[in-house]
């Protein structure tokens, strides 16, 4: 294992981490900040993926596809918020889980009815289909750079929005003590609606950007839900900074588990045993990390509400 390889894997880890953050970004807003446990976030992610994928194949324009994905998803989200989520803000987490789990079930069937059960086509924009040389020695998929940039962008935007805008302060206030926020003259419902829409937009963006490098299929939402929740919890619910750092951590640990562990194990164990244990460990690395963190910091790395 030469140093170039290690560098490359480290980059891959960070890359995967940023990808995770992109997936978790919207949820950080809705769950982390608004304290609303919205499982349907996965459904919004799926909507973004499907819409942009179809638009892309038909129009051939990637930018148009992303735009369409976001617009349609936000529209859907607005409806969802008005008829359902709005009534859930004041309910306990269990009710929220129950209702939004219901939404997932309905969304999956709807998508299947429209697009069929098989995965659908989601092309990579031709301009970005090949690799580029990083630092002269490292061929890197150019499209990935877009995803990473988006991840960083989302992180920065979220951080500013949540911590340095009045909207961010209002939504935090409304989430922690609705009555008091209203007493201070905040239209909590409107603020929440806006922020929920932003969360949906981020979900859609993630869906649209992931489509060209992953399968666009029914249930793609659920598969990202757990990792997204995990990074939010490791980071400390409500902390954007925490979520980002947690994403990078998970990305690195997961990649290390997959890339470095098997060879190491093969050094010490019999090949077959190594082949058994290696991947098993790799697949639980994320959870071990979470458990480990919560043992020492029971409310995440950066607890927002002390």
């Amino acid at each position, binding site marked *: 294992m030469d140093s170039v*390889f290690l560098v*490359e*894997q480290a980059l*891959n*880890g960070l*890359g*995967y981490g940023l*990808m995770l953050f992109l997936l978790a970004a919207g949820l950080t807003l809705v769950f982390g900040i608004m304290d609303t446990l919205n499982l349907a976030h996965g459904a919004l992610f799926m909507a973004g993926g499907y819409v942009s994928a179809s638009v892309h194949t038909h129009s051939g324009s990637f930018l148009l596809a992303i735009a369409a994905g976001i617009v349609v998803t936000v529209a859907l989200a607005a409806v969802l918020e008005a008829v359902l989520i709005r009534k859930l803000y004041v309910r306990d987490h269990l009710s929220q889980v129950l209702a939004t789990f219901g939404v997932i079930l309905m969304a*999956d069937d709807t998508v*299947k009815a429209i697009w*069929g*059960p*098989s*995965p*659908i*086509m*989601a*092309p*990579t924009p031709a301009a970005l*289909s*090949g*690799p580029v040389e990083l630092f002269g020695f490292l*061929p*890197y*998929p*150019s*499209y*990935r750079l877009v995803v990473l940039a988006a991840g960083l962008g989302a992180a920065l935007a979220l951080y500013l929005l949540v911590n340095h805008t009045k909207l961010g302060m209002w939504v935090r206030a409304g989430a922690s003590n609705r009555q008091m926020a209203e007493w201070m003259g905040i239209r909590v419902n409107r603020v929440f609606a806006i922020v929920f829409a932003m969360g949906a937009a981020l979900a859609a963006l993630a869906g649209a950007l992931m489509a*060209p*490098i*992953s*399968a*666009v*299929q*029914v*249930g*793609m939402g659920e*598969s*990202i839900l757990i990792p997204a929740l995990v990074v939010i919890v490791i980071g400390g619910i409500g902390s954007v900074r925490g979520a980002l750092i947690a994403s990078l951590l998970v990305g690195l640990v997961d*990649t290390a588990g*997959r*890339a470095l562990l*098997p060879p190491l194990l093969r050094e010490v164990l019999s090949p077959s045993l190594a*082949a058994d244990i*290696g*991947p*098993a460990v*790799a*697949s639980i690395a994320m959870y071990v990390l979470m458990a480990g963190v919560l043992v020492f910091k029971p409310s995440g790395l950066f607890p927002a509400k002390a």
Partner: protein
Amino acid sequence: ANPIKVGVALDISGPFAGPGAEIKDGLNLAAKLLDNKLGGVPAEFIQADTAGNPETARQVADRFIKRDKVDFFTGPVGSNVVLAVGPTVFGAKVPFLSANPGPSQLAGKQCNPYFFGTSYQNDAMHEAAGKHAADKAYKKVVVLAPNYPAGKDAVNGFKRGYQHTVADEVYTKVGQLDFAAELAQLRAAKPDAVYIFQPGGMGINFIKQFMGAGLNKDMVLISSPFTADQDIIAAVGEPMVGIYNASSYAHDLDNAVNKQFVAEFQKAYGRLPTLYAAFAYDVVMNLNAAVKAVGGKLDDKAAVAKAIKTAKFESVRGNVRYGNNQFLTQDYYLRQVVKTKDGLITNALQPGKIFTAHQDSFAAECGMK
């Protein structure tokens, strides 16, 4: 007489909903062409969703047998589902014709007079791929499969066919999203060829990212037929072009039965059939022949089972016949994904055969004669 009942445990939802739909279409087409008769006797195809979950599948099988009293059973996509329902179905002496997986257990030690590998034996497809790699004299080959039994079978199958030692076996997570780490390993290893078994979405993720990393320039990509069939091609498109895969079925196989099947399938569904659909079609044809052979008398279970094994049926795969373990011995071909002059991306049958009348390598372990 009351109609023949065929219990069809499908993957309508869940991870294998795609293949599930293919199987459903294949069955329905066959049924339609036989205007819902088997051997001339009216037949009823009772369908139910297993969501790819073994527990659920068991309940479905249970219902088929205890309540609906089905005469035949078929449908599941996953090996784990087949293994889960096996005992229930065999216990009731209901013939089970697998439309897709052929677990090694059931081909070997646990072979059963009521189980029929009408499709293929899991390892065989991989063996063929391995054989192809050997024929091409690829020196350095890396295999990549998810870390669960089917994945391990795939690797073993490939190695059996390849017969040299593979440079590296990489096991990935089930349902893995990001393959950057594995791709880096591949780039570092610089093999002549890489063989992947990544069913469902995993395959799509992998191929898209493999092409995105530009590795296709440095090494030959051979995949299992499942990751290179019409459904996946439809989802990945252009990047698929050039991928090799070994299969016992190809939609451009040159025989009358297949030509008719493909034509009818395209007429009915407006797309090319996958191997899932083809094998499902064969299952019905096999039943049809068997019922005809026993003259519609299904009470003597043993006789029915025997008929299924012996009755000659018109397979889209040309001439096939059951071996002692009741898995089909069949030919295996090389396919490559190409872009036809009219812009259609699809598998093209390559000249020659990898295996002829190939019997899977577990038959020997099976006690049945």
